[in-house]
């Protein structure tokens, strides 16, 4: 086997899609070529991410400092277990979306720049997962935002322009909060390298500047992740995008914001330990998680449009992640890592499935849909796996994820932990109700309009949904591998000084 230096592998998941994006721009007049470049880049990115995962799992953290400046001064790329795992997950989603796009993204949308924007967004997502510098993280967030805006407005419809304006203005606001937080952090600690920050931060006395910085960063991440008081942009913009784009956004973007939470609060501020300079993070996260869950699931139940229903479930699932983080225990962090992989795959799969439902039923309105179970049984089976997975039915990945989060909450041994666990269980049942509503409406019920049999669903669409559904099933059947990996990722993420004081 050819061995690639770990340093090159650590930047490959960013460089491959970025280079691909440049090439697709050059090839914009020749559409088959453009699509070919995009698909090759996406597959190459998957291969590079898997190689990176293998390297990191066996050989430890891969670090590259660009320009040759040493660690606290230069900007470094750090691929640890968490970053590599999320890169692989993002790449799997990218492959599924690229496959789905063959049937969904037609001439006009490709001409409007789907391929280049999609690849650049993937580069930004991987960049955020792999960067070791907190300011660089902000830059990747902004690149993600720019690409996402371009992707949402691909058709230049009225609703898309309106949704994109809401999305951009709120995200800019969030980025502003993040930037102030980063500025304050630099003013207090004098460094931007996250590993170095973590060392500087441990054992510092609490100060106003550090608390302000932490909570400003939190509000920026909360806004970008679509959590409770600041989520209104999400259900107002995601459903307007072309469905392949919505799937990529739902699978990737809000989770990157949660990843940033995990990285910044656990690693940099060390909030899990007793020596952290920031107090009050756990109750804030717990309130955000519980509020988001309850609001999002009830809002989802009220929806009749498949895309809107799923957009609310995106928020609800991110809330489970935040709940796991709010416990601030090793079990909770490991559960969050496991849950993230599951929810990225399943969320993207459900949106792609919604696209296929709309193709068969000529629209996203559930009330006018129906009959897919008898007309398209194969697709119905694939979609059922995803719907069961998000509701937490064994033996799918959703069951283990929810089990781990709720188990960690009960083992926390506090009243807060128990209350959060109970809320999580109730919300799981409501999720199941919401999903069974979608199922009965779109698949089970006889079609409302007589003589309108379901249209055929292109094979590429079914396959792309199947990729994600089967990976969820595979994780569910063999949870041990991912579980032990995410435990080790959590151990690697938590600073050593903090880890000693944790249960």
């Amino acid at each position, binding site marked *: 086997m050819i061995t690639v230096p770990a340093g090159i592998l650590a930047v490959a998941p960013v460089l491959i899609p970025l280079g691909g994006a440049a090439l697709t721009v050059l090839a914009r007049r020749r559409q088959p070529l453009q699509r070919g470049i995009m698909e090759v880049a996406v597959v190459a990115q998957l291969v590079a991410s898997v190689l990176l995962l293998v390297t990191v799992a066996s050989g430890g953290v891969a670090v590259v400092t660009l320009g040759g400046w040493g660690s606290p001064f230069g900007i470094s790329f750090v691929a640890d277990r968490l970053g590599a795992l999320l890169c692989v997950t993002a790449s799997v989603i990218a492959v599924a979306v690229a496959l789905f796009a063959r049937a969904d993204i037609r001439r006009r949308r490709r001409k409007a720049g789907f391929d280049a924007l999609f690849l650049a967004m993937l580069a930004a997502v991987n960049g955020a997962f792999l960067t070791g510098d907190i300011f660089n993280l902000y830059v990747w967030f902004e690149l993600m935002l720019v690409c996402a805006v371009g992707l949402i407005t691909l058709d*230049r419809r009225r*609703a898309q322009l309106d949704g994109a304006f809401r999305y951009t203005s709120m995200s800019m606001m969030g980025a*502003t909060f993040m930037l*102030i937080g980063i*500025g304050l952090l630099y003013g207090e600690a004098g460094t931007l390298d996250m590993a170095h920050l973590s060392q500087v931060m441990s054992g510092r006395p609490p100060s106003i500047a550090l608390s302000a910085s932490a909570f400003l960063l939190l509000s920026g991440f909360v806004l970008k992740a679509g959590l409770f008081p600041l989520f209104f942009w999400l259900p107002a913009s995601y459903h307007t995008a072309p469905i392949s784009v919505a799937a990529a956004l739902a699978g990737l973007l809000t989770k990157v914001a949660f990843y940033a939470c995990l990285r910044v609060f656990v690693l940099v501020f060390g909030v899990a330990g007793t020596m952290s300079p920031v107090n009050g993070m756990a109750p804030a996260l717990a309130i955000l998680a519980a509020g988001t869950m309850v609001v999002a699931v009830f809002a989802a139940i*009220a929806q009749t*449009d498949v895309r809107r229903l799923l957009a609310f479930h995106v928020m609800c699932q991110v809330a489970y992640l935040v709940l796991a983080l709010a416990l601030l225990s090793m079990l909770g962090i490991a559960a969050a890592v496991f849950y993230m992989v599951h929810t990225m795959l399943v969320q993207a799969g459900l949106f792609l499935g919604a696209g296929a439902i709309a193709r068969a039923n000529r629209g996203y309105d559930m009330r006018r849909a129906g009959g897919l179970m008898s007309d398209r049984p194969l697709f119905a089976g694939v979609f059922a796996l995803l719907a069961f997975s998000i509701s937490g039915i064994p033996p799918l990945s959703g069951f283990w994820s929810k089990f781990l989060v709720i188990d960690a909450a009960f083992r926390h041994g506090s009243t807060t932990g128990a209350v959060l666990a109970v809320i999580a269980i109730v919300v799981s049942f409501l999720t199941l109700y919401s999903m069974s509503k979608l199922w009965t409406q779109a698949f089970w019920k006889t079609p409302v309009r007589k003589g309108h049999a379901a249209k055929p669903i292109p094979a590429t669409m079914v396959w792309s949904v199947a990729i994600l559904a089967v990976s969820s099933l595979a994780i569910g059947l063999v949870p041990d591998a991912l579980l032990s990996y995410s435990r080790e990722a959590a151990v690697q993420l938590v600073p050593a000084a903090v880890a000693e004081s944790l249960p």
Partner: protein
Amino acid sequence: MTVVYALLGAGLFGCGVFMLLSRNMVRMLLGLSLLTTSVNVMIFQTGRFRSQLPPIIPEGSEQLVNSADPVPQALILTAIVIGFALTVILMALALRVHGSHESVVTSEVRSAESLGDPILPEKTT
């Protein structure tokens, strides 16, 4: 000096937030660009006002003595570029919204929220 800069940053931020609360999209985007400016002023202060010397090690010596902190300046340059790019994108969106909705007031531009809403009537073309 620090106090003056802090007041300047706070004042700009306050103006930005006030304008962002408006329903007019053009005011909103002007408010956002004020916000990004005020953040730059704040980041500038994190380098402290100690020195005006450039961070270049003089010939013959090994250490950098008493110079200005270059990192916040580099951060600000990056933040200016990003803020400018996003403001331009937002401006282009506002222009397109004006073209398609013939209004830039957010209470009249509701096509995204009414799309697929269970209660509001759908008015998309």
